[in-house]
């Protein structure tokens, strides 16, 4: 037997074990604690092995594989660890695809392990055989099919290394049933390098100097940060950079909570339903600094009119994002933390009070034209804005907010005053309805010490409602807030604004959410009246464990401001 180094300082001998057991041993070596999964024929050997590893690996049985992958995403985004999923072949594997796509576009580190039919059956249209490698190719950072047990350690070591290094992303490893069943000499070695993959570029000096020169002579500099800051753990560096340079700073939707919304230099969030100031000032600044973001079209609107007057500095880890949507004057390819550290000594201490005051003047306009109407509505029923605003006050901006997709998502982004790092989880790039409930479950498991609140629309809730079963079975203390407008609200808003109010198939008859919740043994209450909200919040939040609060909100509330899809960011509508 060969002796090899497994972990630094620890020498182990190869052991003869089954492929299935090897998979679990790999996970333990990668310090995995939790697996979200669902069994089936082609992955049964792994589940059988898992039975003996119950005290080392916690398996959460979801109610649909889409729930597994979204839970893994929520877990990963909150804890910074890799999210792990198990699914069987065929339908089990294909049910993961939406979440894998979501993780790819939002750069979330995930490892999916799917069972596959025995290798001699590959290509024969066997029962539950599907070419998941082919299907997942465009939506994974890497994928690989294992047909021999000997390939398991290396494939999994690479999977974990690739998923979490550089710009993170999802990896799928498909393992045939025979490879799970056969035995081999197992030895694990973590992957530290792949020659065809360099996740961390060397920082070059010239662009750093060029960027510093631009920043130092700027009169109206503007900074926009994205999730890259959170992913690289650069929150502290960002704060120091912003405070030294005095630059008004805005967030993308996914950047929210990387910087306190209460900071005097924070000017709001950009994009389709973002704040007025940061959107219009994009087209007035002289130097535009983008950090860890990718100029999504929901941020830029019409690219041909976006920040044209400005010198653009783009700080980004992924070279393929440079010049993809917006042409840059200075590109700094590198990890946000590393770049900001290097840039800090090169920039001058500065302040831009007058320029900052222009943002505050915009805030005033937004307050008068949009915010006030939402927060102090004349309507009998409450608005989503009002509810989120009160929730923010109640929780002092300290909770982890997980949202689904739609109006409530935008309202949560606009009105929750994030005051703690890693506190906002949403499906940004893909906009996946059904994301919230399972992602909140994953987030709570990832950081049990924090209060995790799921804010969901009545539509999206019903897309993955079955995951209430997970909350019940494992007693996951997620707080659920349903903002019920009996509409697919965001689509209805577009119908109102752009389709002559033709509400084609967006009104919904909803079930009794309270009864459903109680059916899952989750305490629930419904509130309709404004003056009962505070009391309802107290009861809901003070309840031990999970609880659900349904707030019946105004049916036809709109989210404003709004940059209509594809238009210029300065043409933002306030009402």
């Amino acid at each position, binding site marked *: 037997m060969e002796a090899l180094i497994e972990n630094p300082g620890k020498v182990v001998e190869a052991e003869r074990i089954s492929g299935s057991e090897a998979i679990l041993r790999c996970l333990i070596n990668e310090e995995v604690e939790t697996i979200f999964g669902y069994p089936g024929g082609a992955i049964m050997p792994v589940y059988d092995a898992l039975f003996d590893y119950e005290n080392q690996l916690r398996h959460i049985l979801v109610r649909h594989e889409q729930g597994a992958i979204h839970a893994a995403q929520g877990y990963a985004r909150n804890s910074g660890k890799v999210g792990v999923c198990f699914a069987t072949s065929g339908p089990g594997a294909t049910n993961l695809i939406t979440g894998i796509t979501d993780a790819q576009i939002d750069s979330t580190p995930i490892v999916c392990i799917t069972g596959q039919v025995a290798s001699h059956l590959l290509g024969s249209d066997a029962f539950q055989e599907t070419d998941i*490698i*082919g299907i997942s*190719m*465009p939506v994974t*950072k*890497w*994928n690989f099919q294992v047909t021999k047990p000997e390939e398991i350690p290396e494939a999994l070591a690479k999977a974990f290394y*690739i998923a979490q290094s*550089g710009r993170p992303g999802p990896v799928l490893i498909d393992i045939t049933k025979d490879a799970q069943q056969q035995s081999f000499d197992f030895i694990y070695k973590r992957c530290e390098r*792949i*020659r*065809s*993959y*360099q*996740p*961390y*570029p*060397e920082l070059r000096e010239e662009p750093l100097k060029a960027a510093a020169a631009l920043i130092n002579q700027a009169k109206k500099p503007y900074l926009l940060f994205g999730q890259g800051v959170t992913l690289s753990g650069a929150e502290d560096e960002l704060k120091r950079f912003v405070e030294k340079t005095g630059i008004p700073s805005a967030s993308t939707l996914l950047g929210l909570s990387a910087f306190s919304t209460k900071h005097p230099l924070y000017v709001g969030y950009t994009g389709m339903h973002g704040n007025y100031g940061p959107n219009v000032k994009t087209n007035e600044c002289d130097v535009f600094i983008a950090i860890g973001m990718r100029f999504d079209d929901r941020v830029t609107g019409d690219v041909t009119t976006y920040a044209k007057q400005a010198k653009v500095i783009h700080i980004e880890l*992924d*070279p*393929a994002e*440079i*010049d*993809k949507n917006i042409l840059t004057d200075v590109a700094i*390819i590198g990890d946000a933390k590393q770049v900001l550290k290097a840039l800090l000594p090169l920039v001058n201490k500065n302040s831009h009070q007058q320029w900052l005051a222009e943002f505050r003047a915009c805030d005033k306009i937004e307050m008068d034209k949009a915010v006030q109407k939402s927060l102090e509505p004349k309507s009998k029923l409450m608005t989503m804005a009002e509810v989120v605003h009160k929730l923010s006050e109640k929780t002092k901006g300290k909770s982890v907010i997980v949202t689904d997709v739609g109006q409530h998502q935008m309202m949560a982004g606009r009105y929750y005053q994030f005051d703690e790092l890693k506190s906002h989880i949403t499906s940004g790039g893909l906009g996946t309805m059904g994301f919230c409930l399972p992602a909140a479950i994953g987030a709570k498991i990832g950081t049990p010490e924090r209060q995790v609140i799921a804010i969901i629309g009545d539509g999206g809730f019903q897309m993955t409602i079955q995951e209430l079963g997970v909350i019940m079975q494992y007693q996951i203390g997620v707080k659920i807030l349903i903002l019920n407008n009996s509409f697919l609200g965001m689509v209805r808003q577009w119908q109102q604004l752009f389709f002559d109010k033709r509400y084609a198939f967006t009104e919904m008859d909803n079930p009794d959410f309270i009864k459903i919740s109680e059916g899952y043994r989750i305490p629930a209450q419904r509130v309709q009246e404004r003056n009962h909200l505070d009391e309802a919040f107290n009861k809901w939040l003070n309840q031990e464990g999970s609880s659900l609060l349904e707030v019946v909100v105004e049916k036809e509330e709109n989210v404003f401001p709004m940059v209509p899809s594809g238009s210029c960011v300065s043409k933002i509508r306030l009402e």
Partner: protein
Amino acid sequence: MEKREYTISVLTEDKPGLLNKLTIILSRRKININSLNVSTTEVKGVSRFTIVATATKIDLEKVVKQIRKLVDVLGSFLYEEDQIYYQEIALYKLSLEVFQQNGLLEKLIRQHGAKIIAIEDNQIVIEKTGTKQETHELYEVLEPYDILEFARSGRVAISKSKRRTEAFIHELETSQSNTLSIKEF
């Protein structure tokens, strides 16, 4: 911006499935592949994909960077025609009888720098190496003589750079920079 024909050269680890991973990056953007060739290189375990596509330079630069993101890709480069040496190969099959009836054909073939690689079963196979235009010219010459079958390969290309593939791979192995492999090679 004007659409033109460009050559993308991709050095990869010799792994299954890569062809798909590469081509979907082009098809996503509705870029048609004019030709594609996969071959080994002088370095063991390293393959070369040569893709010819017509698109704007800006779009193809983005594609080349996205190709580089694939984990098993070592390097991905975009070339204009004058940055590479390239060739294609074409095969033409005629009936031996027709060939023999037209004495002039042999001379034509020689003039075009083509050669006869097989005469068998009453058929004759002619081979010509050259640019697409050159092989097409010969096609037009032979067309009146009833071509029974014609096939043309994808382009193969090597860069005019003086760097060796091996040295490039060595640089990659020792460097941390992922910008290296999208620079010109």
